[in-house]
């Protein structure tokens, strides 16, 4: 696969990952390094424990799928990685969860900075009621000032990277709400990558889309893999097997099995995994 350039981050040294990390995600063996790791991670909403002693390592610059029946804790786990759970007062967690050695459960962690490094795409496309241009420019404008030409360049690169540029280049000033569902979701992906994150979290990004839009998003995920660490929550077994390098199967808040996607789907070690991936339950 050809490696698309990463102008978003290269254009600005200030947004590059700090050098004092334990491992450099852009090292010589990117696929070897661990981006996210968790050790006996427990999570609660109020008194209800939704994550049970999770141990998992997620490699940098790969696509990892989280699969499992509804309510198994996949989305909760995802929302701990960029601390979106902070918006839920009753959410708490114990154990360790780290991104390149940074403790993500640290109460004093700068979540604004974390979310600049960990982008998120939601289940339902949620473009802002603004123009297409302003949607993509929203994140970059939060974090630094740009000259108009730099900003336009960044917007074009982000829209190209999310395979939307050709469809919207003539109407960047029209409202994002006029786009189709699939276009809106690709716009949300463009918006997320415009701030140059290291990790992209996708929470069932195709569940509200038709098959054709789904195909284009999946194609996009395969292309983005060269640049970003991607974690995708999905209910669609075929989708997981099509787009991901590794897969983790969750059931009732526990990690049942994880590993290379082709192994997990063709030769699962665990009986529950086999039942789930072959469609016998869930």
């Amino acid at each position, binding site marked *: 696969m050809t490696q698309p350039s990463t102008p978003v981050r290269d254009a600005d040294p200030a947004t590059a990952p700090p050098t004092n990390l334990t491992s450099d995600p852009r090292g010589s063996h990117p696929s070897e390094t661990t981006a996210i790791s968790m050790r006996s991670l427990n999570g609660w909403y109020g008194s209800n424990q939704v994550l049970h002693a999770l141990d998992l390592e997620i490699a940098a610059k790969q696509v990892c799928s989280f699969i499992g029946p509804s309510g198994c804790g996949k989305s909760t786990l995802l929302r701990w990685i960029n601390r979106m759970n902070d918006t839920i007062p009753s959410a708490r967690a114990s154990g360790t969860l780290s991104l390149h050695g940074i403790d993500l459960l640290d109460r004093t962690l700068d979540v604004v900075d974390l979310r600049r490094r960990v982008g998120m795409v939601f289940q339902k496309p949620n473009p*802002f009621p603004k123009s297409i241009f302003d949607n993509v420019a*929203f994140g970059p404008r939060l974090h630094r000032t740009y000259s108009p030409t730099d900003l336009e360049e960044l917007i074009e690169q982000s829209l190209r990277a999310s395979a939307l540029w050709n469809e919207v280049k003539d109407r960047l000033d029209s409202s994002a709400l006029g786009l189709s569902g699939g276009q809106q979701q690709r716009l949300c992906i463009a918006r997320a990558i415009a*701030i140059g994150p290291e990790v992209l979290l996708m929470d069932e990004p195709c569940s509200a889309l038709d098959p054709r839009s789904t195909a284009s998003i999946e194609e996009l995920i395969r292309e983005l893999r060269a640049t970003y660490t991607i974690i995708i929550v999905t209910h669609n077994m075929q989708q997981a097997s099509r787009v991901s390098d590794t897969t983790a199967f969750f059931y009732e808040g526990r990690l049942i099995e994880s590993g290379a996607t082709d192994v997990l789907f063709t030769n699962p070690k665990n009986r529950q995994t086999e039942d789930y991936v072959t469609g016998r339950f869930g």
Partner: protein
Amino acid sequence: MAAGVISTSRRMLSNRVFLWSCLAATMIAILLLSVLMVSIAIEGWSSISWRFLDSFASRKPAQAGIKAPLLGSLWVCAICGLAAIPMGIGTAIYLEEFAKRSRLKRFIQLNISNLSGVPSIVYGILALAAFVRFFGLACADEPWTLGDPESLFFIQFPFGPSVLAGGLTLALVILPIMIIASQEAFRAVPPSLRQGALALGSTPWQVVRLVTLPAAMPTIMTGAILAMSRAIGEAAPLLVIGGFLLVFQTPTNLMSDFTVLPLQIFNWAGRPQADFHKLAAAAIIVQLVVLISFNSVAIIIRQKLQRPLQS
């Protein structure tokens, strides 16, 4: 089986009855309004003239006009809006976007709901003590003044029965409505927009400034229209703080004496001479025109703000 079945014709009948009762309810409101408008128009139309708009009060009905109350109403409303709208929006932002669920928040919320039901004359009594007299605490005997009484920037403490005190009084009256309307507007903004902005690394204030406030603004403007419409029609609290019934000048600064249209109407309508009743009707027509133009301006602003939101 058959015992439980309600025939289609019977259901259609109750459907029609319901429809007609709803229509009748609507018609009663419209009918009453039309009767009011028509009777006012018949009585007051002949008195409307440029001279009527451009003259001060007089003992002779033929020479009396509404220059002072008309400009007084505009001054008071402008001050009221400048005070109440930002305060209402600010309170709503705090309660909806920042305050955590706590006993304090519930207490504030309960009191705002209660305050919106307090009769406006009670606010007049509060404002008389607070704004007009500063609770008798400061400069009670001799007002402390700042600036030239003739200039626009003249201020005195306490405010006395001035146009500033009047505007702030009405601000108190409409503040609860303004807060509740703004809160509803913020609640109507989809949470997914907040989440999207947060996930891009916005601070909570950036989320409000860039996403929720712009999205809530059209609805807030609607609330502001309703609140201001109520303010412009208030007479009782201004009567309590000492709004004057006969004023022979227009406001020149925040400390000017003032009267407003509802006070003038109240004054004229209470007189025995029929000619003054005609003037009252004419003043009511002017009041309605002012109200309608207020609302139209606000609707235009709202639509301007709404346009970028639509596809």
